[in-house]
Every structure is written in C-alpha cells, then in structure tokens.
C-alpha cells in the first residue's frame, strides 16, 4: 500500500525522497500523526516535510504502520551486522518519538537478540532514552558479564559516558558489587 500512488491523500518529503501515504491510516496508528494530519492544528497541505529523520528509517516506519512488520531484507541473517543494529537504533528512536509502541517492542526484541560487545553500549543508551526497561536490563547483564569486559573500551562506551552518566553509574555499581563477591 505504501507504494500505491492511487488513493493516497498526503505525501511526505524526507531527506529529498518522497513517500505517499493515507492520512486516515497513519492517524489510526499514531497519535502524533493523528495530531499532525487530522488535528485542529493539522495542515491541509498535500506535502509535509519531515526533518530530523532519515528516509530509510521513515520507510521502515511507514511499512510497519501498514503491515505490522519490518520491511523485507531489513535484517540480514548475520546477527552481528552493525548496520542493522544502527538501523534498529534509529527505528527505535523514531518509534518512540511517533508513539508507535508495537514497533518499539519489536525493535527492542530484535536488539536483545543481537547484543554484541561492539553494540551493547549504544543499545544500552538507546534503551535508556526510549524507556525500554527490559532491553536496558538485558544490556546491563550483558555488559557486566566478565567475558564481555572488552565492551568497556568501545566507541559506544565513550558515547554512553558522554550522554548518559546515570547509566555509567549503574554499571560501576554492578562492577563494584561483583568485585566484592570475588
């Protein structure tokens, strides 16, 4: 349906790309889109520009709203593909912003499955930002497991250190506890 030009009554301009959609469906799936498209402050404009979101992310968002699923080929067979992980991070953030709880859950689960030493720090940060408590606790467990100590020297950890000091505190507390146990 996303690709149907017929009967669509709005299109979005995202990062130079154009996407067609149906107001009623988007409004039914997300309160933010509802306010944007049908609310009293809505615009009757046929074309709406969205800044601050990547075309690929928006496409996945739309696809979810129409089908309740990830776009085909959005995840490769190798669980360690950090491209996919990045995509999931962005998708998670977008789902949070546009209040698509179903999509949030799906992204969180996918991220849980594909935790790796390289990605866990960033994932932890996104979990914190988007209020995904289960994902967050899985990340913490992963992070503080002894064999994953190398996670502490990734770029992601640095990013985490800059932006989420409260989470760093939590990690330190866990490490301290573990030290005591030894």
């Amino acid at each position, binding site marked *: 349906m996303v690709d149907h030009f017929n009967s669509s009554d709005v299109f979005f301009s995202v990062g130079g790309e154009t996407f067609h959609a149906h107001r009623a469906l988007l409004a039914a799936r997300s309160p933010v889109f509802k306010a944007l498209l049908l609310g009293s402050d809505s615009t009757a404009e046929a074309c709406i520009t969205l800044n601050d979101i990547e075309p690929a992310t928006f496409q996945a968002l739309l696809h979810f709203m129409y089908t309740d699923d990830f776009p085909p080929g959005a995840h490769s067979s190798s669980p360690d593909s950090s*491209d996919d992980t990045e995509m999931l991070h962005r998708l998670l953030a977008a789902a949070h912003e546009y209040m698509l709880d179903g999509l949030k859950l799906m992204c969180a689960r996918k991220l849980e499955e594909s935790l790796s030493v390289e990605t866990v720090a960033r994932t932890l940060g996104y979990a914190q930002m988007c209020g995904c408590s289960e994902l967050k606790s899985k990340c913490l467990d992963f992070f503080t497991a002894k064999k994953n100590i190398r996670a502490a020297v990734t770029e992601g950890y640095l990013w985490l250190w800059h932006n989420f000091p409260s989470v760093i505190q939590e990690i330190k507390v866990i490490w301290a506890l573990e030290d005591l146990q030894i």
Partner: protein
Amino acid sequence: MSGGGPPRKRNFKIELFKHRVELDPKYAERTWKVLEHAIHEIYNHNASGLSFEELYRSAYNMVLHKYGEKLYDGLESTMTWRLKEISKSIEAAQGGLFLEELNTKWMDHNKALQMIRDILMYMDRTYVPQSRRTPVHELGLNLWRDHIIHSPMIHSRLLDTLLDLIHRERMGEMINRGLMRSITKMLMDLGAAVYQDDFEKPFLEVTASFYSGESQEFIECCDCGNYLKKSERRLNEEMERVSHYLDAGTEAKITSVVEKEMIANHMHRLVHMENSGLVNMLVDDKYDDLARMYNLFRRVSDGLSTIRDVMTSYLRETGKQLVTDPERLKDPVEFVQRLLNEKDKHDKIINVAFGNDKTFQNALNSSFEYFINLNNRSPEFISLYVDDKLRKGLKGATEEDVEVILDKVMMLFRYLQEKDVFEKYYKQHLAKRLLSGKTVSDDAERSMIVKLKTECGYQFTSKLEGMFTDMKTSQDTMIDFYAKKSEELGDGPTLDVHILTTGSWPTQPCPPCNLPTEILTICDKFRTYYLGTHNGRRLTWQTNMGTADIKATFGKGQKHELNVSTYQMCVLMLFNSTDGLTYKDIEQDTAIPASDLKRCLQSLACVKGKNVLRKEPMSKDISEDDTFYFNDKFTSKLVKVKIGTVVAQKESEPEKQETRQRVEEDRKPQIEAAIVRIMKSRRVLDHNSIVAEVTKQLQARFMPNPVVIKKRIESLIEREFLERDKADRKLYRYLA
C-alpha cells in the same frame, strides 16, 4: 563500531545533537521561546503559520532532555497571562454583549487548548504522570475557571445575567437559547461543582421565590381548575427549559421546586376551594380538571391521599344523606337505582380521570359499604330492585344487558353486611314471582342464582334452587295428574298445583280458609292422587298464596275473566248465591283472617277499574259494618282483568319487625355453631379472641353483635358445652 565496508552517510551532527543529554540550557531556553511564541500565535488566531511537526519535536526534545518542568511551568504561566488579558476584554463588554463575548472567548480557548495539547502530547504522557501534575487539558480548564469564571468582576455579573435572562423568559420574552446552552455547557465542562455552586444553587433559590410569589398571586384570583392549568403549564415550561439549555441533572431538582411552591404549599386550599374545589369537580363530572389534579398531586407526598380523603368524606356524607332521606325511601326501586347511578358516576370518574387507581377504587368501595349499611332496609330494597327487574324491568333486554345489570346489583350486594337479611327477602320475592308466573326470563333468574352462588357459596343458594326444582316437578306432576284422571274430572274447574317443599319456601303458617265446594272436590281428588304416589308425605293447602281465574258475567251481559287471589275467589264465589253480604257474613263464611280479608275486600271494592263489588258506605277503608254487593254496573275495557294482590312490595312496619325478629332468631344457632367450631379446635380461648374469631367466620353473611355472642356463650356454658376457667373469668374451655 564495525570495521570495513564503504563509508556510510551518517548525519553525525543531527544524531549527537539530538541525543545529547546535557543540553545547553541556552538551547533549552531557545526551544522554550519557540514554543511560547507558538502559544501566543495560537491565541492570536495565527496558528496556520505554525508547523506542528516542528513544535512537537521541540517539546519532545525538551522533555527528553529533562526540561519537562521548565516546559510545564512555562505553559502554565503563559496561559495564565493570556487568560488575564482575556478577562479584561470580557469585563469591558457592554450589556448584552457580555455573554456573547464570554462565549466566544471560551470557544477560542477550547480550540487553543486542543492545539496546545497536541503539541505537548509527549509531555502529557511522560512528564505529567511521573511528576503527578495536572494534565494539560484539565490545567487549561482549571485556569479558565480560576481566572475568568471566578474573577470577581465576572463571577457575579455572569450569574446575574443568566438569572435575569431566565426571569425574562419566564415573563414571556424570547431569549437566545443557543447562547444559554453554550454557557451552561461551559460550566458543566468546568466541573459539576462549578455548575452547581456558581449557577444551579442560586438558580433554584431564585426559582423558589419566583414561584412562591406567583402561586400566591394565582391562588387569590383563580378558581381551582384554572390554577391547576397554570401550574401544569409552568411545570411543563420548566422541564422544557431544562431540555433546551440546562443540564439534564437539573430537571429533577427544578420540578421538585415547582411542585413544592405551586402544589404542595397550597394543596388543602385548592382541594377545599369553594365552588371550584374537588367536591364541585366530582359533582359536575369535570374529568379534565380531575385528571389534571390527580397528575399534579401525585407528584407531591400526601397529594393523592389528600384527594382520596376528601373524596371519601364527600361520598360518605352524600351517601348517608341518600340512605336516610325519607323522601327517597318511599320508592325502593328508585332508591336502589339512585345508588347504582352514584356508583356508575364515580366508577367512571376513577376510570377516566384517576387512571383506575386501585387505592381510589378501594376508597369508593369502603365509602359505599359504610353508608349502604347505615340503613337496615338496604338488603330488602336491593331484593325489591331485583324483583322489579326480573318481573318487568328487563323485558326485551338482550342477554348482555341482563348480565350487566345483574352484575351491577351484585356489586351493591357485596357491600351489604347483613347478607342473611337479603337472603330472606330474596326468597320471599322469588316465591311470589315463581308462583304468580310473573318472571320476565327464566335465564335471567338462573343467572342471578349463579352469581349469588359464586359470591356466597352453595349453602346460600341451595334452597333457592330447590324452589326452581319444585316448580318443574309440579309441572310434571300436573301433566301426569291430568293424563291419568281426566275422565274422572270431567267438567269441573281446572286445577294447577305447585307442590312446595316446606324447607325451601318462605311459607308462613296459614290458617285454612273455607274453599268453595267445587274447588274442594277437585282439591281432594288431587290430594288422593298425590298421596297415592308419594307415601308418607303431608300436603297442606296454602290458601294465602294461590290465584284463580274466574269467568264473570255482569249486568248487561259483559263477560270478563278476572284474575284474583284465592281469598278473593272465596269471597266472590259467595255472591253466586246472593247479591249482598255484610262484612261479618263474609268473615264467617270464608274464615279468612281479618287483616287479609280487609285487604282483599279493599282491592275488590275500592279500586277504580277493578271494583267488581260495590260497598256501602262508599268510603275508602273497610270497616266491619260495611255491606258488599255484586257490582252489576262494572265495566272495563279489558276482557281479562287483574285484581290479584300477590305482588311483592315494601313491607309494612309490623311486617318488617317480624322479619327482623326471624332473622335474629336464625342467627343465634349460626353464632353458636361458630363458637363451638372455634372452641373445639382451640380448646382454650379468651373472650375477646372468641368474639374476633366468630366475627371473622360469619362476616360473609352478617356482622354478629358482640352482646349476642356473649349471651350465646353463656347459653353454651349452661348447656355444658363450655366452662369458665376457675382462675381467669375471661378464659373459656371446651368441654368434650
């Protein structure tokens, strides 16, 4: 970070920018300023130039980066500032424009609130619940309430304006109902407490004093019917007002105010109003007014019971007058007809105007029961009424008509407390009807018996049915008699005998009179025949109940057939051998008792058109010195002349006393039987309980007199059916 692969396009700047937690407070302030500006633009009706998406994101970012509190506080103070400005503009509105301005600004505020809530959606869903602050929409309403509605300059002016408009509408002016609706809806949206405290309560108070005044005015100048019409109109008006522009919850409250002021406070004055009150309405069958009164009064407590009580005492009073008015009592049939008419009239009123209300039906019934029994001749009169109907009144009536009339009579019958008295009279009257053959319809007679049986049980009607059986059996007997004995009888007078079983018929002891010889002969022949086939029975001729058809030839040869009583026949036959006889002669020859003889002679000699005898002197009354002559000059247009006196009529005073005495005598054994029945099952019982139980058992037939019950108990004690308890004189014991 992954290695290898082509460099990806990644908008670092945006990402880091977006997700940095330690946001520059200056950035936060800038973001807030954007939002603040948007809020102002929205209130200035410039929303079209705004981008929802951007504003949403701005608010989202602020909250994400922990600036929720700043955002919320900013919202609150900005909105407050705007509302204060709005308040000034409303206050400045002149006269009639005040309400409109208020309404317009309210609409604007709601619209703005909606937009703002959409923009701040993320804050509403995350920061607000977490910090337990009031959600945006509710906040907007509360601020409106506090700074507009409760602003001192506006608060009282608003209430006064609303009340003034309502008052004007009550006085007949047209007001803008749509605007009113909008305002009251606004108050409800702000909370039921606001609607009630700032409008409804004062509204109800003002309404109460308005109607208090108006009702006072009306009641001074209107009659009852008109007052009720006006009240009804006002009540409907108030309900309509609620449906148009007040909250539905007000309806019950306002109607109870109107009901109290206009109806409840003036109830008694209305009902008793001279010339137009309840009694007048009842008398004049004013169905509409009565229905209106019923419907209005049922809304207030004690309303219907007030109507009912006044109606009951009116009925009782009127009824009492009816049954004790000597004029009315002269004609029993008229008397009963009048009762039936009254019943019909009030049945119709209760049906049409009072919705067949059962409590009113009951009041009607108890009133009738009360006054019908005030006159102890009611049972007799009702029986006479039925007698009149069955004798001639129902001639030509359809089966349905008959049923209707008899059912109505049964209704009166039910009210009688002395049903046994009725039974006695009914028997007498029925006997006369049967024996004189003067009944309009056999089916109607039977129908009446069935109704009495249904009402009172088999006991009541078994003897009556016996009377019908006797009539039929007699018919068969006569057919057989003539079949067997016709040769023997030859040319003598024809006999038609009704054989009456003693127990069933109300026979009085009858001294035999001297029958003419021709009659005696055939009577004896019949007696022989009958006793031949019915062993062990005794036959007694009831000469006071018979009739005879006589062929008489007068002076100029005119022949007439006279229908007379047996006594009259005996007297007339004497004149076959002589032309003139003194009273004393007749008395001796016929042996008829004096009072009967006098009555008999009176109808033969003193009634115009029926005077087959001539009396000297020509006075109206019979004296023992009179002489009687066969009246040669008798003429009549009819060939068949009826002179019989065997018609049921109102009893004379001495007759009445006699009947009453017999009734009292009959009651004694019934009371005793009841006492014995009760004591046998209860064994020991105190005096008062016995009286109560006996009354309960017998009240279907009559109301036993406690004094009589006491006497019967004493008699039973004497005859050793009961004994008094040694210790307690009030206690009785059954002796087996």
